[in-house]
């Protein structure tokens, strides 16, 4: 009971209290109905217009017939333009309004397709749209052929202006960098390069060495006693490399049929094939573009290596040699590119204490 009364009073108060709101409401309703009326009118007028132009309304067949008629006449027009343009220069200026008419006809055709699309099968809509696109294109090309006009474009300006300078720049760039690089390489970092069939023993007893490079070695045995800041290994074939601890990182690229015994903070191996790596690494070694590479633990021995390993933070076996990340195999299952060397195949502890420093090349009896 009470509720009803409340409702009533609220309703009445609404009516009484808000004459302004009411007025607004009425105005809005009127606007809406006006809008509706005009919309209706528009649609009927449009319908009558289309009806007059298309007697068989909503018939796919007749639409297609009309469409292909229009298409044919447009094509004929376009052909005429081209012929005219080819024949005489004077006619060109007269063609212009005709061309504009043609393009207007094409957009009219496009509108018709759009209006009739609701009853046309999808295939017909697609094909007629495609036809329209082709017509448009040929009108464009007719414009270009018949009335060539200097178009404003950034590209033409840039290309006419910049091409030669770019070429020059490029050439300069290459020369500059070649020059710089050759100088840099000539200055070179310490290392062993371009050697074949050699046993090379290097003994670094004092301070930590800087970076050291092994490059372009073929069938060599290399023993490096000492500590290094960084080690770069590039293009080795059929080599055996034994090295003391590296404080920084080791980067190995393009090696085939090799054996490495290395200890380092980080080891990256790129493009290695058929090679064995005996490693002690503080972090996980990574491989990229490698195949048939195998991994085992570091087992090198010479006088003072224990202290050297300790100074480089590599005295503990971390077991990381067995957890390799393959950047070419980012999946949970084991990569097919690498495996762990089975224990009975491990090379024995390699003791190089007795090796004297030698750098001369002599044939290996293998």
């Amino acid at each position, binding site marked *: 009971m009470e509720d009803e009364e409340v409702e009533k009073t609220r309703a009445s108060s609404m009516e009484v209290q808000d004459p302004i709101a009411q007025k607004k409401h009425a105005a809005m309703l009127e606007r809406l109905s006006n809008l509706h009326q005009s919309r209706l009118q528009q649609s009927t007028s449009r319908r009558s217009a289309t009806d007059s132009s298309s007697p068989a309304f909503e018939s796919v067949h007749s639409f297609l017939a009309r469409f292909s008629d229009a298409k044919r006449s447009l094509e004929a027009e376009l052909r005429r333009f081209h012929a005219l343009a080819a024949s005489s220069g004077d006619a060109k200026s007269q063609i212009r309004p005709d061309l504009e008419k043609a393009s207007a006809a094409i957009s009219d055709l496009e509108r018709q397709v759009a209006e009739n699309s609701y009853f046309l099968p999808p295939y017909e809509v697609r094909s007629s749209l495609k036809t329209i696109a082709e017509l448009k294109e040929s009108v464009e090309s007719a414009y270009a052929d018949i009335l060539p006009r200097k178009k404003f474009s950034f590209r033409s300006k840039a290309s006419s202006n910049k091409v030669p300078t770019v070429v020059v720049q490029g050439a300069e760039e290459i020369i500059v*960098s070649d020059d710089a*690089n050759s100088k*840099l*390489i000539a200055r070179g970092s310490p290392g062993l390069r371009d050697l074949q069939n050699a046993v090379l023993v290097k003994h670094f007893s004092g301070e930590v060495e800087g970076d050291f490079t092994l490059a372009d070695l073929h069938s060599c045995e290399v023993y490096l006693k000492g500590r290094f*800041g960084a080690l770069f290994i590039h293009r080795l074939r059929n080599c055996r490399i034994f090295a003391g601890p590296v404080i920084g990182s080791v*980067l190995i690229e393009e090696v085939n049929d090799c054996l490495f015994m290395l200890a380092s903070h980080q080891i990256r191996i*790129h493009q290695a094939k058929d090679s064995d790596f005996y490693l002690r690494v503080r972090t*996980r070694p990574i491989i990229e573009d490698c195949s048939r590479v195998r991994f085992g633990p570091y087992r090198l021995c010479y006088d003072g290596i224990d202290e050297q390993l300790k100074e480089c933070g590599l005295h503990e076996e971390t077991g990381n040699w067995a957890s390799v990340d393959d*950047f070419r195999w*980012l999946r949970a299952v084991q990569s097919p590119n690498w495996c762990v060397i089975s224990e009975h195949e491990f090379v024995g502890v390699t003791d190089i204490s007795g090796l004297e420093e030698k750098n001369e090349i002599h044939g290996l009896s293998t």
Partner: protein
Amino acid sequence: MGLLSIIRKIKRKEKEMRILMVGLDNSGKTTIVLKINGEDTSVISPTLGFNIKTIKYQKYSLNIWDVGGQKTIRSYWRNYFEQTDGLVWVVDSSDVRRLEDCRMELANLLKEERLSGASLLIFANKQDIQGVLKPAEIAKALNLDAMDKTRHWKIFGCSAYNGEGLLEGFDWLIQDIASRIYVID
């Protein structure tokens, strides 16, 4: 202009900067980030993917995106270009052989339109190793002088191993970004 001023306003409020660390693999990107954040740098694996660090630096908060540099994942760098305020290109000064690769990768990166406004800090890293190339030599090898004149760039020698030069580099970068993005107060 309207959108730009809105972005500026938001950034000014938060004082945030987005820094992208890139460079070839083995150049020391992750080590640099951890070093300036005062973390342990003795056990850093080659980056498989990326790391994000938010670091308070002066009155700014830096979002540092440290992206792996291995060849396989370099093509993913572009996923991190959006809204980068500062670019840090790290060079291994001891890796003479790959300097040409380094130059090409940097040149490709700088063609990127989304990075066109970013300040560029180049670190010639690993200066602690004796006999490595000096920053001036790196600048020459990378042909930095031929860079687009509108680019703000500077090269610093540094060692992520002992920390030398890192703060100088970041100071310059932050100042440069700040003077561009924020009204200097």
